[in-house]
Every structure is written in C-alpha cells, then in structure tokens.
C-alpha cells in the first residue's frame, strides 16, 4: 500500500502527530544531556576517588620506596585494598623510576623485580587516568616524588563496571521514564490537538456538501460557542450558505421562467405549423364537398388532406416527446433528434432559411434524451433567429470518444461577448434574460450541466456562430438500464 504524502494527510492527524514527534525529540535531547552530565560526574568522581587512593598510598610508600623495602610497600598496598573498599582496585603496582617493580598487590601477576607492562605504561604516558569503557576498566598512575626527584610510580587498575552498570541503569530508567512520559504527553497532545482541530472536519464536510448542492446550514448543536473562533466562523459560514441557497433558488425560478417563455414561443411556432396546413386542408374539404364525385379531384384532395394531417401529426408528436418526455428518458434515438426539424420548420420557412441537417447517430445511444433535445431545440431556435433571411442553419450530431457532439451553426452577426461568456462561464449573468438572442442561454446551460456536458462557442463578428455541446455518454450500467 502506498503511503500518501504527509502534506496530503488530514490536518487533524498532522498537527497532533507533529506535537507527538516534538515531545519525542525534546525527550531524546534531554536524555542525552542527562547521560552526558552523568558521565562527566562519574569521571570526576572516579578521578577524585583514585586521586585520594593514590595520594594516601604514595604518602605511606615513598619512604619505603627510598629504602626499597619490598615488604612494607606490599603491606601498604595490601592494607589499602581493604581501606578503599569503595574503589574496586584490581591491582596496584609500585615501581622504581626505571620501571622495575618493587611490589604489587598481586605479586603473582606482577613479580617483584619484573617490569611494569609496556601497555600500562603507554596508556598512562601523558595522563594520570585512562578510562577504557569497552573493558570497563580505569587505569591510573601517580608519580612518586621525593625532594623534586622522580623516584618511581604507583600504577593501579580499577574495575569501573559498577559505574558503567550505574550509568546503564540510569539510561534504562531514563528510557523507561521518558518513553512512558513521552507516550503519555504525545497521546495527550494528540487528543488535545485533535479536539481543537475537530471543527475543521465539520467545516470540511459542510463545504463538501455545499459543492454537492446541499445548502443546509451547520446544525445548532455543532455551532459551538459564539465567542470562539470556530463559533464565529461557523456562523459566518451559515450566513454564506444561506445566501447561496437563496441565489440557487432564484436561479431555478429564472430557469423555470425562461422555460415557460421559450415554451410560449415554441407553442406559437407549433400553432403556426398547425395553422399553415389547416387552410389547405379546409380547401381540400371544400373541394371534396363540391367535386367529391370526380375521382381524380377526390384523390388529389384526399392526398392533400393526408399530407397536411401527417405534417400536423409530426409536429404534435415532436412537441410531445420534447416536453412531456419519452418513455425512455435515459436514451436518445436518431429519430428523437430528427424530429426536432418539425419544431423549427416554422422558423426556417418564415425566414426562408435552408437547414443543413447532418445526423450521424446510427441508432439508440445511452444519454439523457429529454435534456439533449430541449437544449438542442433551444440552440436551433436561437440560430434561426440569429440567421439573416435566406441564410443557412447547420445541425450536426456525431459520436466521438465516448461523447455525443452536437453542433449548431448560424450565419448571423456573431454572438456578443456577454452571451458567449454566459455560455462558457459557470454562471451566466442574470442581465441576459431580457435579450431575445439570449433567450434560453440560462436554460441550455442548466440542461447541459445537469447531464455533465460542456458548451463551447466559436463566434466572430459577421461570420456567424457555432455552438458545440460535448455530452458524455452514460456509463455501462446506464447502458444496461437502456437495454
């Protein structure tokens, strides 16, 4: 599993974690300081202890070294062993200035008249105390001076494992205590900071809901005290959410109004479409009544009647499908688009326009048919209105890259910037609503956005406008429903 980047972790985890890490860091530094100090103290302690030991010895030993009295030297070393029980002296050696051993506390290892081991001498060549922490031993030397003359030295090896054990014990205690405390503090810090930043989560949830169109305010029980920072923030947020809610409600009402306006215009168009053949149909009925006996005339009149009624039927059916919704709103057929021609026929003929219709949709596709038809119809009506008399309105529909691409083009004067931006921007200006050419812009936007589509506009002054809708097809699951 890949661990997400620290920066992308929620702040409710990051801040407490940082507090915990800080605690661990402080505790580590403190422990290190304490141990270093302990080590220094131990060294000093050892130094003064060995100093006292060697000073005491040298006082009693010097006259005997001068006389080379082996027994008295040994006796001093032997007695000192018992006297300095606090210092674990492993052995001590008294040697003459030339390194010849006079006596040692353990004469079996360091024979009288032998030589002090070179290793010991070299370790203490330029110092009086040498600590070897690996072997847990300290080596010490004291020069024996009589009347400014170097008459010999005392060497001692001291077992410092007790000191080391003490240090280790302190280390373990420190680790245990600090570890425990750090854990407690870190946990406390984590919980405390977590509590402090919890309102951020609430805010985050709420903003997320807002994005999804849920404008409910933060509930009273989560608002907190009005004097706290988050209390004030939440109240401001609620005010903001409230105004957004009102704005949204306004927009919905506007869209509804536009829909009605658009419907009114369409209805008049449909009425016109129905009215046009009605004159011819009534004439045909008259002709049948007067000359119905003549087979040719009757046939021709009936033929006229049939075509006129068929035209009316097409217009009515198309209107029904568009505004009442089909039995399968989740899909769109080729014919559903082709039927739109009947709804704009009146505008086309009134302005003597030619309609360039290219529908490449082969069959049924999984898409919200109603929304696509309404949006396309609005674009077509707008294109008809924008086109000069005798101009051409082009329609194209094709599938590509999992999208349904619909283009509607006119040869009009081009779209004013305001309207173009209204199409492309997320939120069209409300001032457009009075403009005839802008009729339906608001509605088209809502319809297309509702089914996840995008609108692109290509326009230039005097060279017409092309508006393209890119609408994603529904997912496989949606397809299943369609099938």
């Amino acid at each position, binding site marked *: 599993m890949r661990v997400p980047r620290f920066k992308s972790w929620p702040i409710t985890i990051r801040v407490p974690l940082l507090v915990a890490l800080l605690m661990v860091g402080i505790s580590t530094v403190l422990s290190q300081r304490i141990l270093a100090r302990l080590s220094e103290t131990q060294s000093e302690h050892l130094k003064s202890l060995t100093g006292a030991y060697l000073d005491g010895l040298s006082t009693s030993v010097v006259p005997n070294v001068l006389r080379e009295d082996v027994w008295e030297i040994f006796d001093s070393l032997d007695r000192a062993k018992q006297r300095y029980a606090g210092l674990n002296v492993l052995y001590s050696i008294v040697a003459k200035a030339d390194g010849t051993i006079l006596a040692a506390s353990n004469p079996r290892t360091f024979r009288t*008249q032998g030589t002090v081991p070179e290793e010991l001498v070299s370790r203490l060549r330029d110092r009086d105390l040498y600590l070897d922490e690996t072997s847990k031993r300290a080596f010490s030397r004291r020069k024996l001076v009589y009347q400014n003359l170097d008459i010999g030295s005392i060497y001692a090896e001291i077992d410092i494992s007790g000191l080391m054990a003490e240090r280790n014990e302190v280390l373990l205690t420190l680790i245990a205590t600090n570890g425990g405390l750090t854990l407690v503090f870190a946990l406390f810090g984590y919980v405390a900071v977590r509590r402090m930043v919890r309102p951020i989560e609430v805010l985050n949830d709420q903003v997320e809901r807002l994005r999804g169109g849920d404008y409910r305010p933060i509930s009273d029980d989560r608002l907190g005290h009005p004097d706290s920072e988050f209390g004030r923030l939440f109240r401001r947020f609620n005010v903001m959410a409230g105004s957004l809610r009102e704005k949204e409600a306004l927009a919905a009402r506007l869209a509804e109004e536009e829909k009605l306006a658009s419907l009114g215009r369409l209805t008049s168009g449909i009425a016109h479409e129905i009215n046009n053949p009605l004159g011819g149909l009534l004439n045909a009925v008259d002709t049948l009544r007067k000359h119905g006996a003549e087979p040719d005339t009757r046939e021709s009149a009936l033929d006229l009647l049939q075509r006129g009624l068929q035209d009316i039927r097409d217009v009515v059916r198309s209107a029904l499908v568009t505004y009442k919704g089909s039995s399968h709103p989740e899909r769109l057929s080729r014919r559903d688009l082709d039927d739109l021609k009947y709804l704009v026929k009146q505008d086309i003929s009134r302005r003597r326009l030619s309609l360039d219709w290219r529908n490449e949709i082969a069959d049924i596709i999984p898409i919200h048919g109603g929304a696509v038809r309404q949006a396309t119809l609005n674009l077509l009506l707008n294109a008809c209105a924008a086109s000069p008399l005798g101009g051409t309105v082009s329609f194209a529909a094709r599938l590509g890259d999992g999208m349904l691409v619909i283009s509607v083009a006119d040869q009009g004067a081009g779209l004013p910037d305001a309207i173009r931006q209204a199409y492309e921007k997320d939120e069209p200006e409300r001032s457009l609503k009075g403009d005839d050419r802008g009729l339906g812009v608001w509605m088209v936007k809502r319809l297309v956005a509702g089914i996840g589509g995008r609108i692109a506009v290509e326009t230039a002054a005097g060279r017409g406008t092309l508006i393209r809708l890119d609408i994603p097809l529904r997912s496989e699951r949606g397809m299943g429903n369609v099938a």
Partner: protein
Amino acid sequence: MKGAGERPNRSNFGGSGLDRRRFLAVGATLLAAGRSSRAQAAETVRFGLTPVFLTSDLELLESLKAYLTAQLDRPVELVQRRTYQEITALLLSEQLTAAWICGFPYVQYRDHLELVAVPVWRGKPLYQSYLIVPRDRAAQGFADLRGDIHAFSDPDSNSGYLVTRALLAEMRETPSSYFGKFFFTYGHRNVVRAVASGLAESGSVDGYVWEVMRDLEPDLTAATRILRHSEWLGFPPIACARSLRDTAMVRRLSRALYHMAADETGRRVLEMLRLDAFAPADPEIFNGIAAKYDLVKSMG
C-alpha cells in the same frame, strides 16, 4: 639487584656484630646514670615482647598483663618494638626487667643475659624453623629455591633467619649469592603472608608461629607448604640482663611464669599462646643455635 634487601648494618656477623655488642655495653654503662631512678623503675615491671609470637592479639596482651600484674602485685608495662634488635638493646641496657626474646640474641649476648624461663610447647622447650613455599609450587627441596625472592622474618631471629643462613653457610653460600632477592618482614606472620600472596617465592618462618597460625588463620597457612623442617632448637626464652639476675623482681617474675599453668588467668594466657607452661631453662638447649651462629660467624 642481588641482595638489595640486605642490610649490612643489621648483620650480626663479623666485625659489625662485635662492634655493636661493644656499643651496647657502652650504652648500658652510660645508662647506668639513669639508674638513679632504679627504685622507681622497680615499682613498674617492664616486660619486653618480640614478634616471636602473635603480638597482634590484644586480648592476649591484656590477659598477660593482667596475670603478671596480679602475680607481681605491681604495675606491669608490656614493651613492644618493631625489631628484635630494639628489644635486645633495651634489655641489655637494663631498661627492661625481662623480655621474651629469640634464642639467637640470647646466644649472641649470652655473657650479658640470664635465662628467666623457657616456654614448653607440646611437652618440650623446643621448636623448629620451617622453610615454606606457596602451596602450588613444585619445589622439592632447598636446592630448588636458588634465585628465589625470599622472605626472612628478622635479622636477629633464629628461625626466621639464622637457620636458613646456616644452611646456606654449609653450602658456602650467602643469602645474596643464593637468592635472587631477599627481604625482611619483621614478623613471622608477615613471612607467611608474603609467601601466601606470592610476593615471596619462599620464606623462613618460626615453626611454632606457623603451627599456631594454622589454628587461627587456616586460610593463610593453607596457601603455603612446608618444604623443610629444621632440627629441634631451643624455644625463644624469657631473659633478663645478667646484672638483674638476682633481684627480687626477677625472682618473683620467674615464679609467676612457672606458676602460670596453675592459675586461671595464666591458663587462659597459655591457651591463647598454645603453650603448655613456662619452665626453668637449661642453657644447654640453645647449643644448637649457638653452633649455627658459630658456623655462620666462621664464614666471615
């Protein structure tokens, strides 16, 4: 380094020994002036002790003092010095009523000293000198000790020096020529300590002291081993200056010593000393020591 531990000034042989004897005699004469206070000195019995036995035992000293005080009906002062020589000098100069000395100084100053009593140990007024080595040492005989670091007790001790010195003299050797190094510990117990610790590779020690130590400090003697026993020799006696031989005090002292086994405190003292009794001494028992002294002296 050979013989670095030897102290010629302490040697009892050759001219220096005679010189000292003369010195001591002169000293005694000079000190006769101090004897104007003799009457007062007679009030306090001054009894000298040498490290022939375990002088470190305070209880023993207290008991001995208590016994003598009670028997002599006088204050008793026990006088101790580090070396035999110091006690011998005090004895010869009559600053001590009597002293427990070694057979060797007695033989040396026979003409100036008189025996007061001699201890009886294991039924006889005799003891031996031991040559000891560390227990784990493989040496089989005295011949294996050549080149050793050797511990002597005291240059005026018979068992702790003279016996070994005479043994060497028989071999036409001296401590300096025979041992790698030798030193004096001024105490028989110290000789045992030196050998037990390994400081010395061999030592000359009083057999009586070693045997008593075996009871009292078995760990210490267990670390040593007897390599050689000497012949039986006169036990360190209690002696007084010949000039004081017939004084009432010395006579009372002798009687007190002979009586020791019959008294409860006395028996406790004897028990602590691991001795049977004190008895009148026959100077003959010191002939063995005298022979050794003569042998060594003849070596020059």
